[in-house]
């Protein structure tokens, strides 16, 4: 008898459990979430990591990738930098299309020097002068309109610098790496005033 009672209570508990979680966690289940990033897709974030690492590579100090620059840009893109969202989406996709045309590989799989070379072409605006889309529906259309390669490179470069040298509060400059690199002691060590001491 005792047993019976318990299991009934248990049953009610379990079913209530089910109802409750169904009611309250519909969009919370992890499988449904697309990306752990705020704006970037997982692939975009991976590509960003590779690009920013080219801009500030790791030496005896960690580079832009490990300093969390992608995180910084991702965070700003859903905040103060919403206006750049479209540029990033288009720019990153144009980089991958260009790499497929030129190297038949995504950017991340290029060798270090190829990556550098590619970014140099962007910086000098070479891609917008030469590259045309291979997509049959857009045959003849330029991948990079109006020097967008150049302006996008400069944008990423600026944001990388901001992420690397700005305050960690904004998402980059992990462990104050850039401050330590340039020999800036942070936090500043200053005692209280002791006029009488």
């Amino acid at each position, binding site marked *: 008898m005792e047993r019976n009672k318990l299991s009934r209570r248990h049953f009610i*508990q379990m079913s*209530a*459990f*089910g*109802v*409750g*979680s169904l*009611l*309250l*966690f519909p969009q*919370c*289940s*992890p499988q449904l*979430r697309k990306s*752990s990033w*705020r704006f970037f897709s997982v692939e975009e974030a991976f590509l960003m990591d590779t690009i920013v690492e080219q801009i500030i590579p790791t030496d005896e100090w960690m580079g832009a990738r490990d300093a969390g620059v992608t995180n910084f840009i991702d*965070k700003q893109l*859903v*905040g103060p930098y919403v206006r750049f969202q479209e540029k990033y989406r288009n720019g990153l996709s144009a980089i991958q299309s260009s790499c497929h045309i030129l190297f038949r590989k995504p950017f991340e799989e290029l060798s270090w020097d190829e990556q550098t070379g590619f970014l140099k072409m962007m910086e000098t605006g070479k891609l917008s002068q030469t590259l045309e889309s291979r997509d049959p529906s857009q045959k003849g259309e330029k991948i990079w309109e109006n020097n967008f390669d150049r302006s996008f490179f400069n944008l990423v470069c600026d944001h990388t610098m901001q992420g690397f040298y700005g*305050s*960690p*509060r904004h998402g980059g400059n992990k*462990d*104050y790496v850039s401050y*330590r690199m340039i020999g800036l*002691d*942070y*936090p500043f*060590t*200053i*005692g*209280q*005033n*002791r*006029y*009488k*001491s």
Partner: protein
Amino acid sequence: MKKILFTTLLVLAILFIVGALSFGSFYAYWNTASPDRTCASCHEISSSVKSFSGSSHQKMHCKECHGTALSNGLHSLKEKGMMVVNHIREERVEDIRMNESQVLNVMENCVRCHASEYANWKSGGHSATYKDIFLDVTHNQTEQLNFDCLRCHGMFFEGTTADVVEPINTQGPWKLKDPKKAGQPAIPCLACHQVHADGAIAQAPDYSKPASIFYQRTDSVSKVSFYDRHEKEHIRSEMLPKLKLFEGEYQVPVSEDPLMRNCTQCHAPNGWHQAGTSDDRTPRGVHQGLSCTSCHEPHSNNARNSCVKCHPAISNCKLDVTTMNTTYANPKSPNNIHWVSCKDCHKNQKSKIGNEK
């Protein structure tokens, strides 16, 4: 008419029961399920869950420290409610930080498991309260109260010094704006510790090779972080700058111990980093290069029993150092234990500075 009323009531009653049932089960689920099914599934705190999963407390459930939605009373319930509202509105809430009262609440939970650290902390100067720091007549008469006081004590206070104490002048009499703060700690555990941070769970060594137990040890990171009020963030002590200290032009050698970098954030010299200024206690003279923690215990700050760790095996004077004329034996001694040097006591020997006196 009556029928409509009845149906409405019935519907309401059913809604209420469903609501209560689902809240109840939600609540039970919340408190028992694994964090990555509950807390972690809300992106607002997913980064906190991530940082927690590599910490030395990773085996514990969130509620061990943060309490349940109800245990912290209405305030916390309201906050969690806001989280749900923001969630539904799809507003991103970045960088949730605990407010001071939550910091103090959490601290009560630390004490449950770390009673001995707490007792030691309580017995030392770091358990100073708001009253001790902000109503100290001598300090307030010599030192104009200013915004910077909260950097080293009261670091979690949300507001300025003027919101803590009035009047802001050197005449007084002073009183706390909120009398409830009088007994609250000004340097709580979280001033020096971060929980959502890298750490390791203790593990037994491999006993199959007893001789190698020592060599199985790896250099571990320190367990201390400094809470930087300006950035509202903890900085691991390894990442804090090592103090650069000068006597005139001469740069004093300072210990490499990361733990000391935490101490010198508060026990700091003046802006020119001149030795002995402001609250500087950096060892010089006979103890030059030692870390604060070679003598001071963590938490209690006690240095009473430290001398025997190194002395008298290496005493030059063939004397018991604890009875010699230093501030250790007598607070009024001219020979401060932090910077006494051979020539302070051996003035007649070939020491230049000693002879000048």
